[in-house]
């Protein structure tokens, strides 16, 4: 029942506002998190199948009547499902306390929006249909526009509006691309497109595919915030409730952006050196620009947004190399980034929950008052910067190794130097928020409530454990997923 990944959150999302009349807090908390946990557990159900390299093309039946739904579950989509479930569980647990803040309220609506984003992402990941990808992308996107402005502050609305308008343009271009593909091949199913394109070698078709590729890179690139399509991200994140960026940067940019890109280029269109080159450069530019911009930020979430841009650059580069090692590195980094970046955003939520601000220069010395937040933040920061023995180190290492093996020495150097800058801005966070002398204003600040701390600790533990146990994780989850990409065009 692969469809459960989509149906379950969708149904609960629909029910929650109604049930919310019964119980305003406990029930939504419980139901939503139960769904996330269930999805997480359910994704393990397929793990052995997928790691054996099998692809499930599941035809959904309703009481024996076949419905027009074909879902594709291979190791790559399973990895994504797993990541989505894990991060959303973390975010869901975090929200239990977080959304109690006065300015947020209305938990049922909040959770149904959260569930809708999850449903949307699961749909994207499982879809075997280009148009289906678009539709579910819009579900996730619309829900996240609402979440981005959930506090209804004027800056939140501003960020949300820019996010929406830029996304609309992006999705329009995606659709233009889809219609071109449709006009070219007569189908929108991934394997259909792949099999048609596999036989067309004419130069004009190559040009057309090139144009489509450009459109998709722009569209999904905007979704995944690749420079120069990144500008919505800092604006949307800086004032939004911390759970949205955690969700969005943690998984949405990957599921809605990168995943689709690699799926299309490696499994459907077939990779070309042109796309590789373009992606490589975009990735490197993202790495550099994102890291530098993050360095100059004062708002914690804005900083983290730029940091996400930079980290996504690494993944893009990793994917663009096109070697198995590159895939492993990029996919592993994708997973890791989901964990530690959402942890970082959740930390910023904890800080905001405790102090009411996210401006770094107003903070200071919180480590004493909020040891859990500070500790988990160090773990996540160092993991992002690629400091061993945390998970981020291994993924970055693999990407850099792949770069060197593919003879992209300069890019490898840039990647390394950018990680120094990464460490730099994380040290700035540490210095300004946690590691300095206690700012007198915050002498009565308390540690984050139980569920928030729990979720932070959970994610931080994953970072540490993966730092040590990475070989097993790579073997079980990452390598099969990479093999899907290595295998090339799907049938």
């Amino acid at each position, binding site marked *: 029942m692969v469809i459960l990944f989509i149906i379950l959150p969708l149904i609960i999302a629909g029910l929650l506002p109604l049930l919310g009349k019964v119980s305003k807090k406990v029930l939504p908390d419980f139901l939503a998190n139960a769904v996330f946990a269930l999805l997480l557990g359910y994704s393990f159900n397929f793990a052995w199948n997928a790691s054996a390299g099998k692809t499930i093309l599941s035809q959904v039946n309703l009481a024996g009547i076949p419905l027009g739904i074909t879902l594709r579950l291979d190791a790559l989509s399973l990895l994504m499902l797993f990541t989505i479930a894990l991060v959303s569980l973390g975010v869901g647990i975090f929200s239990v306390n977080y959304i109690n803040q006065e300015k947020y309220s209305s938990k049922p609506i909040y959770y149904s929006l959260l569930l809708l984003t999850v449903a949307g992402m699961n749909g994207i990941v499982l879809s075997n249909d280009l*148009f289906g990808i678009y*539709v579910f992308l*819009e579900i996730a996107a*619309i829900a996240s*526009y*609402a979440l981005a*402005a959930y506090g*209804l*502050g*004027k*800056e939140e*609305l*501003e*960020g*949300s*509006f*820019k996010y*929406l*308008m830029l996304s*609309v*343009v992006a999705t*329009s271009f995606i*659709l*233009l691309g*889809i*219609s*071109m593909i*449709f*006009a070219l*091949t*007569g189908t*929108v199913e991934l394997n259909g497109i792949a099999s048609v394109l596999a036989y067309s070698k004419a130069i004009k078709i190559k040009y057309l595919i090139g144009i489509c590729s450009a459109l998709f890179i722009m569209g999904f690139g905007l979704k995944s915030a690749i420079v120069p399509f990144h500008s919505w991200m*800092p*604006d949307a994140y*800086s*004032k939004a409730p911390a759970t949205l960026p955690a969700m969005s940067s943690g998984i949405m940019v990957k599921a809605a952006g990168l995943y689709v890109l690699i799926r299309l280029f490696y499994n459907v269109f077939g990779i070309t050196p042109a796309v590789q080159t373009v992606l490589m450069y975009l990735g490197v530019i993202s790495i550099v620009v994102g890291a530098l911009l993050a360095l*100059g*930020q004062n708002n914690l979430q*804005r900083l983290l947004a730029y940091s996400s841009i930079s980290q996504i650059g690494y993944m893009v580069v990793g994917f663009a190399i096109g070697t198995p090692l590159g895939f492993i590195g990029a996919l592993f980094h994708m997973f890791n980034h989901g964990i530690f970046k959402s942890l970082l955003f959740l930390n910023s939520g904890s800080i905001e929950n405790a102090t009411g601000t996210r401006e770094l220069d107003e903070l200071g010395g919180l480590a004493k008052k909020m040891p859990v937040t500070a500790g988990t933040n160090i773990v996540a920061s160092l993991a992002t910067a690629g400091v061993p023995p945390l998970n981020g180190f291994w993924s970055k290492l693999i990407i850099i190794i792949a770069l060197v093996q593919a003879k992209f020495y300069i890019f490898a150097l840039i990647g390394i130097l950018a990680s120094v800058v990464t460490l730099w801005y994380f040290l700035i966070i540490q210095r300004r928020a946690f590691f300095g002398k206690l700012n007198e204003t915050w002498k009565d600040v308390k540690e984050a409530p139980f569920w928030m701390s729990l979720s932070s600790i959970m994610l931080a533990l994953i970072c540490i454990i993966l730092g040590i146990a990475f070989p097993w994780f790579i073997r079980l989850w990452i390598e099969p997923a990479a093999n899907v990409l290595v295998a090339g065009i799907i049938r």
Partner: protein
Amino acid sequence: MSELAYICFVAVAVLVFIGLYCLMTMKNLIKLLIGAEIVAKGVSLALITAGVEKNNIMLAQSLAITFIVVEVALVAVALAIVIGIYKRKKSLDIRNLNNLRG
């Protein structure tokens, strides 16, 4: 490519151009949404044209219909945001929406 499809694709390009031109130059939030709508029109025309081109108008229609539903939801949310902004800023000028920068 049929002549109809050719003409339609030109129209799609023009519509998208107009929409983007609107998005680039207009200052009123509602105007911007209208621009986005025009782009969306271009896109739905493109979908249908592709169906015509491939002789698969039924599939194209169903895609276009789904697209229209999505469009409605989007516009609804966007307008809700616009009203939210109007409530807080008493202005619909995009130029006032630059508190977030740097």
